[in-house]
Every structure is written in structure tokens, then in C-alpha cells.
């Protein structure tokens, strides 16, 4: 069973459908991928301890062309919005026989949360267990320069001192 508490260092996987059916770039991840459905209590993710990326993509309900993005439970719990305010998200196991390793991100789901999770899962440091590389880096992260501490999981990118409206690079 995988209903034991989820530690901060556990890697979570989220399956993302391709945008190809509605003529968007097939590998573009959107905040819509992190929004809840009508009856959802939380956002479905899978614990890599129990389900590998390859297994997740082979499941019968997987849509052809899907990709998998990842983040740790700790990163999710520490997630902040664009103003660096904590979003107070949690990750809990929601496991049953037909869905081993299933978990849900719970919290007050808003557009802000979906946007934060998109960025978090795209930029998370947790590397794939199979050693393959992930190149799902959007244009927003390719740009060099200022970033907000907390909006990206790598704290070395930026240090914000004092007023959040004036972020400074840590190499200044």
C-alpha cells in the first residue's frame, strides 16, 4: 500500500496531455494542466516511489503523446504565488487498488495556484530516475537575468532583499 505520509523529498509525477489535438504545440505545458476538474478535491499526481514515469505513460488511461513533469512534495508544500505569498498546499496519499501511488495536491485552488504549480513542475530540480534529460523549459526561464526567489525552486538563482518589488541577482 502507498497510503503512508508523503515526505518532502518524495518525487511527484504529473501527466500532461499533448496540446496537439487542439492545435497547440504538443509539448507546451499550460496552467490549465494544473487546474481541477468539476468534481476534483485535489490535483492528481503519482508518487515515483510506486509508479515510474514510463509506467505512468503506459497506463490505459494515458493519452497518446502525453509527457510527465515532476516536482518534490516539499517544493509543492513551499510553493508561493507571484507575490511570494505561501499558497499553503499539501500533498496527501489518495490511494486505492486500481491506482497505486496516487496522491493529490490539496489546497485552495485558484488561477494563482495553477500558475505556480505549472512553473514549479517545469523548473523543479528533481531529475528523472531513468537518467533521461528533461528539456521542458519554457521561454520564460530561458531568459537570463532577474527571477523571483520562491517562484523558482532553485534558491541560488536569486536573492531578494528587503522590498520584493526590487529583486536583486545574487551575483551582484
Amino acid at each position, binding site marked *: 500500500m502507498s497510503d503512508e505520509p508523503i515526505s518532502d523529498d518524495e518525487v511527484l509525477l504529473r501527466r500532461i496531455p499533448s496540446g496537439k489535438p487542439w*492545435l497547440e504545440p504538443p509539448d507546451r505545458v499550460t496552467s490549465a494542466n494544473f487546474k481541477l476538474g468539476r468534481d476534483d478535491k485535489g490535483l492528481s499526481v503519482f508518487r515515483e516511489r510506486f509508479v515510474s514515469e514510463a509506467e505512468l505513460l503506459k497506463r490505459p488511461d494515458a493519452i497518446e503523446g502525453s509527457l510527465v513533469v515532476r516536482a518534490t512534495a516539499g517544493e509543492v508544500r513551499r510553493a508561493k504565488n507571484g507575490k511570494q505569498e505561501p499558497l499553503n498546499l499539501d500533498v496527501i496519499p489518495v490511494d486505492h487498488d486500481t491506482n497505486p501511488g496516487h496522491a493529490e495536491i490539496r489546497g485552495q485552488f485558484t488561477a494563482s495556484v495553477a500558475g505556480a504549480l505549472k512553473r514549479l513542475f517545469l523548473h523543479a530540480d528533481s531529475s528523472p530516475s531513468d537518467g533521461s534529460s528533461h528539456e521542458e523549459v519554457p521561454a520564460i526561464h530561458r531568459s537570463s537575468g532577474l527571477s523571483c526567489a520562491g517562484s523558482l525552486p532553485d534558491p541560488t538563482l536569486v536573492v531578494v532583499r528587503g522590498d520584493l518589488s526590487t529583486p536583486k541577482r545574487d551575483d551582484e
Partner: protein
Amino acid sequence: MKSQFTITEALIERTGSTDPRWIVVRCDWLEDAERQFRAIENLPDGWDGNGASRSDARSLCAAWGLLTSLCRVEGLSKPHVNPTPCGGVQFEWENGFRYFEIEVVAERAATYLYRDDAMCVEETGEIFEDESLNGVLDFIRRVENFTDRTSKRTSAFNSLGAREAVA
């Protein structure tokens, strides 16, 4: 696809008539967007592999009306068009550190999110039938007008974005 969205047709007319910044013309990307809408309209339940609902006809129609209204604003860039798991549709503009999305959540209501990750700015809100689209258009213009000034470190904090953050 019907181009009826009673709110926004009225809104955009009001917008165009009261604010000279928004010159009303017809854009060149509406046909592409229409193809996307038709594809989204045909998505089945569970289209994302995570239990998403198929698109809601009224939300889709409302979103189309909003888009055709926005399309009449001169020079507006085409947004990304994506279905949402609850049967809605959202539009996204992204440029460098700036991002704006608007999600049609009901026949006569939408929510929006604006972020500027360089300046730690985030704004969210809702728009309804009787509100002007000027605010929405301002956000879109902010995204479109973004230029990466980070290579000029000494002047970065005096940028337009910095003033916006302070304001």
C-alpha cells in the same frame, strides 16, 4: 461556431468607443483560433487522461465571443488557446517574464491572472458582463510590450515594470 457573446460584444463596442487606444479592426488569426475551438468542441470526456470534462457548450460559446471581441483590437497577438479540465477554455499570452491568462468559467464570467516574474507582481480577478475590457487589454499590452532589460542591470529597476510593481 456562433460568434455571440452578449457581454463582450457590448463590452468591446463600449471599449472601442470610449478609449481611443483600442482601434477596432479585424485580426488575421481568428481562423486559426476557430479551428482550435472546433477541435476543443470535439474533445471527449477524459481528454487529458486525468478525468477532465468535455467542453461546456455555453462556456465555449462565451469564450469564442470574448475572443472575437478581442480580435477586433488592432495588433493584438494571438493567444494560446487551451481547454480546462472543468469544461472551460482559457487564453494565454506569454512573453519573457510576463504572463496573462483569462479563463472563461461561465457563460457571463471570466477570471484572469497576470504575472510579472521579474518584478514579483501578480494580479488576479474576475470580469463580468457589465465591465469594460480595458483592464484586460491593458494586461495583454503589458505582456506584449515586455522587453528583457535584464542585460542592463543598472537600469533594470527603473524600468516600466518596476514602476508598475511599486504602483
